[in-house]
């Protein structure tokens, strides 16, 4: 009986403790400032987007997104901690507050934007889904894949597009669905599947990771979907969403204006009023976001403009700018006016 009494008492204490957690939601930016770093949800390892290098330093286009936000908030791009997430874990990680930003080659779709409790704030890479096959299979187009076995990761738009594509073209296929990237790629390489499907960028990254054997794999020309990849934050946190969105826009605007991490210090006194605003000499854009006025200078100085980030991260995996070129140069990358 004594025992039961103790359990009841413990339960009552636990209840009290729980009741304490039900408080008004504060903006992520205040929590981030209080803890001193940005917790960023990234891919567990996708060369070009986010992957630790040989020294264990995270590098990539998505990583630069996080570093840009840290530069804007703290004036120090290194104040980021990374959480590697699989496709299946990513949304719960953001919903539950485990990460502050989800920058993990994640496609912006209506369903995700409306019912997952998150908001997409930008598109940092315009992608599309494709297929990779071994040369020895002698297939030149996705239309020839009727009856094929296809390796795919679960919880992705990839998985849905794959089913849609074969249905629309009245073709049959067998999926092999494995969550872990290394495992699914290993299954494809071992010949368990005829084709591996994911975003074109992911295919390029995987193919280039094969080193000398890369030439044995062919990325088919068919692009079967639109995959606008971009960072997301928790739904309804507009203050934080604004910071992430405009961090990205600054990187694009800087490229349009020809500002780079290398030349920004020499452009501090450039008479161009747009540049004056972007380096924080005039205006109060920082204050409007609740940040220091040199927020945009810090982003450009420490992380660089979008073009620099692309050059550094995506070029090495063998992808040209393509549609991700600036709108003024024939692409669709376009930032609303930063002013």
């Amino acid at each position, binding site marked *: 009986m004594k025992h039961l009494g103790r359990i009841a008492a413990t339960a009552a204490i636990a209840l009290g403790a729980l009741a304490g957690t039900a408080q008004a939601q504060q903006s992520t930016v205040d929590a981030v400032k209080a803890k001193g770093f940005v917790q960023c949800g990234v891919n567990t390892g996708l060369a070009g987007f986010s992957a630790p290098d040989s020294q264990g330093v995270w590098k990539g286009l998505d990583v630069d997104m996080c570093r840009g936000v840290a530069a804007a908030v703290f004036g120090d791009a290194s104040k980021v901690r990374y959480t590697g997430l699989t*496709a299946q874990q990513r949304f719960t990680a953001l919903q539950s507050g485990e990460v502050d930003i989800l920058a993990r080659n994640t496609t912006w779709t209506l369903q995700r934007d409306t019912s997952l409790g998150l908001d997409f704030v930008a598109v940092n890479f315009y992608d599309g889904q494709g297929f990779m096959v071994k040369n020895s299979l002698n297939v030149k187009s996705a239309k020839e894949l009727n009856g094929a076995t296809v390796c795919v990761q679960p919880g992705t738009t990839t998985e*849905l597009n794959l*089913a849609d594509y074969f249905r629309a073209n009245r073709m049959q296929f*067998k999926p*092999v*669905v494995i969550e872990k990237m290394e*495992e699914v790629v290993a299954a494809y390489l*071992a010949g368990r599947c005829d084709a591996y499907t994911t975003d074109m960028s992911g295919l390029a990254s995987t193919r280039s990771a094969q080193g000398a054997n890369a030439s044995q794999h062919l990325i088919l020309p068919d692009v079967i979907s639109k995959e606008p990849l971009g960072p997301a934050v928790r739904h309804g946190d507009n203050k934080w969403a604004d910071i992430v969105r405009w961090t990205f826009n600054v990187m694009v605007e800087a490229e349009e204006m020809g500002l780079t991490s290398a030349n920004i210090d020499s452009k501090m006194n450039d008479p161009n009023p747009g540049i004056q605003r972007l380096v924080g000499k005039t205006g109060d854009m920082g204050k409007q976001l609740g940040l220091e006025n040199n927020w945009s200078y810090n982003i450009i100085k420490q992380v660089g403009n979008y073009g620099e980030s692309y050059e550094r991260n995506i070029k090495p995996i063998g992808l040209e700018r393509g549609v991700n070129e600036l709108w003024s140069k024939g692409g669709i990358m376009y930032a609303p006016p930063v002013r």
Partner: protein
Amino acid sequence: MASIPRSSRRPAPPAVRLSLSDPFVRSIVYQILVVGGVALIIWYLVSNTMTNMEARKIASGFDFLNREAGFAISEHSIDYSPADTYFRALVVGVLNTLLIAVLGIVLATILGTVIGIGRLAKNWLIAKVCSVYVEVMRNLPLAVQLFFWYAMIIENLPGPRQAISPLPGVFLSSRGIMVPVPGDDPAYGWMLIACLIGVVATLLISRWARARQAATGQQFPMMRAAAGLILGLPLLAWLAGGAPTTLDWPELRGFNFQGGGSMSPEFAALLLGLVTYTAAFIAEIVRSGILAVSHGQTEAASALGLRRSLNLRLVVLPQALRVIIPPMISQYLNITKNSSLAVLIGYPDIVSIANTALNQTGQAIEGIAIIMLVYLTVSLSIAVFGNWYNKRLALVER
């Protein structure tokens, strides 16, 4: 002493005093407090979660079950296509889990029993081999073993175009094992029914034979009768159906084999892993069960002139089973729960499909709730059945 009626032995119930110093009142009060406390916590957690989800615009509820799933599933024992609902997808997952669990339980029991008896063998080599098997299998994590088997299968077997064909119509490749299966003919259906009738008849006759033996001492050749019924009846049905020999052969068409029956590498690896791993534990249970039967029992049985096989069947095993059944049930539960490691190697079990569903819909809480419900139902059913069987076997104490 058995003649004293029970009620007259019990002391008269004490007058009810509503005081906390009364142990009876106290126990009721505490139990109400605990149950109330737990209910409060649950209510609090649920309502808090709902409010937070509402505030963050996370969808909730089970409406999604009727929506189109949109993703494909490689293995399904009922018809399924991406145009079907999430509900159907989940049912496919449950059936896949049950299939692997049932097959795993049957095979692990057979293998485990053989190895357990093997460890007790007089032959030194057999005993040692069985001991090494148990030690190795028990001490490697199951996940590692699954990856091992899966890699063994897909890395070592050639692609479908170079498939190995050990027997005509049987193909081994990285796409799995393809075998010819009986084609479309009504006779096969009749054979199945005949087989079922044979099994039922065998059960009835064995009952009758036991009763007769108990009453008159006359024995009945049960083994031969069973073989005749279970194998003979289907054979008769097959002959009566015109002895059809149509087989559905697997053949390479395009990228893969079409037709015939097949077992995928994912299924094979999972089954192999679960069976070989669990068999090690079952072997130990069987061994300890047999050792638990006192030597005097076997000696007494041989003194009565029972043959070794009858000794084992009539004296040792019935007593060993009492020791074996309870831990065996927990191994069966383990197989069922461990089958959720299927996600690692891509077999579409309930966890894998519910995970995909919760990811595509974003309804994590509902998804997890479904997984818990399925496992709870399956596990409780196994436990209830096991306990019932255990009770039946237990010593009837007089």
